[in-house]
C-alpha cells in the first residue's frame, strides 16, 4: 500500500520486531508519520499482547485481542519463524530493502536468532536499528529482567513519587516507562534518518528505558549531585505552591489552583470528556474500532489511522512477493511452517 507522499516518513520501510508497547507503539508512531511498517512475529513467539483475558480458545483468539489491535492497527503482518534458518534468511532479505528495524527483545535474543545488531549494522550500512531495552545494550545490569514499573524504581521515579509512607510505582495499568519511551524512540529514529540523509550512514540506536526515566528527572539528579536533598513531595509541586489536591466531597478528588480547577478523572469520566473526544488520544480505525491515537498534529499534513489491524500473517505472501520471492518458494515456506497464520502450538501462554 503506497504511503501518503506528503508525510515526513513517506517511502521509509520499517521492519517491526517490537513487542507489547515499548517496541510496537514506537513503530506505530513511525507508521503514523508515513512509514510502511511490517510487523514480524514468530509462530512460536507472537507478540504477548495477543494474549488477552477474554480469549475464547475455540476461536482465532490471537486475532481478536483488543489491545493488540488498538496498538498495531495499520501494520502489515508477517508471521515468520526466525528460529528456522529459512526464516532468518527471509528476514535478512527484507532488511536489504528496509530503512529501519525496531526491536525490544530481551538482550541476547537477536543474537540467538543470528541477527546480532553489530552484524546487521555491518551488513546493512544504511539501516537504522533501534534496540529498545530496559538497561541498554551494555553494562553489568544489561541482563536484568524488568517491567516498566521495575524501572520506575531503579531509575529514581518511585522514590520521589507517592503521597503516603511508601514509594509508589504506576503498576501494570500504566507502566510509565513503556509509554514514554515510544515518544522518545520514534524521535531518535527520525533523527537517525536525518543523519542518514546527511551522511548516508545508518545507525544502531541503543535506547535504555531506565536511562530515559532518569533523564526525565534530570533536575533532581543535578540537585542530588550538588548535595541538595531529594524529598518525596507527594502531591505538592514546589513550583506551584498554591495548588491543592482536595477531596471532592463525593468520594473523589479535585485539583485547585489560582485561576482554575479540575476533577481527578477515572477512565469513564475521561472517555466521556468533550476535550478528550475532540482530541487525538484515541482515534478510530476504518473498521470503527478504537485505535491508539497520535500525540501530535500537523497543520499541513493530515495524520490519521488509515487501516485497521491485519490478522496474523495476513501479508505473508504479499510481503515476500514484494521482496522478490517466487510463488513456489513462498509455497514451500508455508508448507514447512516457516510462514504461518496462527501461533504454534495454538494455545495461550
Amino acid at each position, binding site marked *: 500500500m503506497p504511503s501518503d507522499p506528503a508525510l515526513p516518513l513517506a517511502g521509509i520501510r520499517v521492519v517491526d520486531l517490537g513487542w507489547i508497547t515499548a517496541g510496537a507503539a514506537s513503530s506505530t508512531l513511525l507508521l503514523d508519520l508515513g512509514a510502511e511498517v511490517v510487523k514480524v512475529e514468530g509462530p512460536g513467539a507472537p507478540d504477548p499482547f495477543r494474549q488477552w483475558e477474554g480469549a475464547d480458545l475455540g476461536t482465532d483468539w490471537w486475532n481478536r485481542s*483488543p*489491545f493488540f489491535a488498538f496498538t498495531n492497527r495499520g501494520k502489515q503482518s508477517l508471521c515468520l519463524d526466525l528460529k528456522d534458518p529459512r526464516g532468518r534468511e527471509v528476514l535478512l532479505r527484507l532488511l536489504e530493502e528496509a530503512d529501519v528495524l525496531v526491536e525490544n527483545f530481551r538482550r541476547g535474543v537477536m543474537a540467538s536468532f543470528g541477527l546480532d545488531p553489530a552484524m546487521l549494522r555491518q551488513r546493512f550500512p544504511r539501516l537504522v536499528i533501534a534496540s529498545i531495552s530496559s*538497561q*541498554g545494550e*551494555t*553494562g553489568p*545490569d544489561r541482563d536484568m529482567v*524488568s517491567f516498566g514499573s*521495575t*524501572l520506575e*524504581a531503579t*531509575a529514581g521515579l518511585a522514590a*520521589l*513519587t*507517592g503521597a*503516603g509512607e511508601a514509594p*509508589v510505582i504506576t503498576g*501494570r*495499568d500504566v507502566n510509565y516507562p513503556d*509509554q514514554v519511551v515510544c515518544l*522518545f524512540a520514534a524521535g531518535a529514529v527520525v533523527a*537517525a534518518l*536525518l543523519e542518514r540523509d546527511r551522511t548516508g550512514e545508518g545507525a544502531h540506536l*541503543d535506547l*535504555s528505558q531506565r*536511562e530515559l526515566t*532518569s533523564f*526525565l528527572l*534530570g*533536575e*533532581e*539528579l*543535578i*540537585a542530588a549531585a*550538588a548535595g*541538595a536533598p*531529594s524529598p518525596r513531595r507527594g*502531591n505538592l*509541586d*514546589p513550583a*506551584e505552591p498554591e495548588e491543592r*489536591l482536595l477531596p471532592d466531597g463525593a468520594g473523589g*478528588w479535585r*485539583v485547585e489552583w489560582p485561576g*482554575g480547577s479540575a*476533577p*481527578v*478523572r*477515572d477512565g*469513564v469520566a475521561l472517555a466521556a470528556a468533550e*476535550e*478528550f473526544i475532540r482530541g*487525538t*488520544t484515541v482515534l478510530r480505525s476504518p473498521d470503527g474500532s478504537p485505535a491508539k491515537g497520535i*500525540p*501530535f*498534529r*500537523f*497543520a*499541513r499534513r493530515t495524520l490519521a489511522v488509515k487501516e485497521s489491524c491485519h490478522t496474523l500473517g495476513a501479508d505473508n505472501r504479499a510481503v515476500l512477493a514484494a521482496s522478490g520471492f517466487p510463488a513456489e518458494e513462498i509455497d514451500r515456506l508455508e508448507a514447512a511452517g516457516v510462514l504461518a497464520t496462527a501461533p504454534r502450538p495454538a494455545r495461550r501462554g
Partner: protein
Amino acid sequence: MGAAMPAPLAGRRVLDLGALCAQRPHALAASMAAKLCGAYGAEVVRTLPEGGEPFAALPPLLPGGGSALDRFLNAGKRPGPATGRFDAAIGDAAALSAYAAEVPIKARLSVFGPEEPDPPMTELGLAALSGLLGIVGEAPPAPPARLAGHQIAYSAGLAACTALLAALRAGGEEMVDVSLLDVTAWLNWKVAAGVMVIGSAPVRGSAKATWFTVQARDGHVALVYQDKDWPPLRDLIGDPRLLEEPFTTGPGRGANRAALLEVIGPWFAARTRAEITEAAQARRVPIGPVKYPAELLEDAQYRARAFLAPDGTPALPLGWDGRRLAREVTDAV
C-alpha cells in the same frame, strides 16, 4: 567507529521560546523539546523576557545558588534575541506569533489543541483531567499520587521534538501542534481504551493491582511480577501459607494485600534491597530496588555507560553506534 560525531541537526538553528510562554507547562515542554534539538546538534537560541530566565528561581535549587531545573533544561543553549534565520521555533501560540512568524517550521504547545483557547492550567491539573493522576497511587480512600518531577510537560516536550524532527525531514513549512492533555492521556491509554474497547477501565488500587513497593531492610523494593513469576517468587520466600488460599491467584493476592504483606513482609524486611534483587533476578523475577537520585550517581550500570556527568547532568538517553552524542562546542549558558 572513528567517524565524525553524529549530529542530525547540525547547521540547523532552533528558536526556544520556552521562556516566553504564558504558562509553566507549556514553558517546560517547549524548553525540553528545544533541549533535545540541541542534543541532536542544533544551535538553540533561547529568547528571554525582560525579567530574565524564568526558571532561574524554580526548584530544585542548588546549595551554591541557581536552579537545577534551569541548568538541566537550558545548559548549552545560547541566550539571544529572536532575530535572524531560524529553521524551527518552539513555543505557545502567542509567543510563536509574536516572535516566529517567519520561521518555516513551528511546534506549538497548547492545553487542548490548536482550535481551543488555553485556560489557566498546571501539570497536576493536566494529570487530573487525563486520568493519569487518578490511576496512580494506593487504593481509595488514599489520595492519588502525582508522578514526581515534570513528567507531563517533559512528555509533551518529547512528543514535540519527535514531530518537529519529522517536519524538518519533510521540509517546507509546517505547524506542529502538541496538546498537553492529548499527550498525557496518550500515556494513560490503557484507562481510556479500557472503557472504549473492553467496557471497563482499570481503577486505582483494584484487586488487579498486585504490584507495589515493599519495605526492605535498607529501603524499598518494587514487587513486580507476572502470574508466571509467582511460583518462583513464592518458593523464594518459602512460606507454606503462600501455597494456600487466597494467595494462589493474582486476584486473590491483590484483594488480600494486607494479609499477603503479613506473610511476605518479614522476609523482605529482613533483607537488603540488593539481596532481594539478586535472589529474585536469579529466578528471573522482575523485582528491583527503589533507588534515590543520590544513589544513582554511584550506580554501576550508569557509570559503565557514562550516563551521568560529574555534576549529575544526564546524557541524552541514547547510545548511537556505541557512543553518546556530545556537543563539540560548549556554549556559554
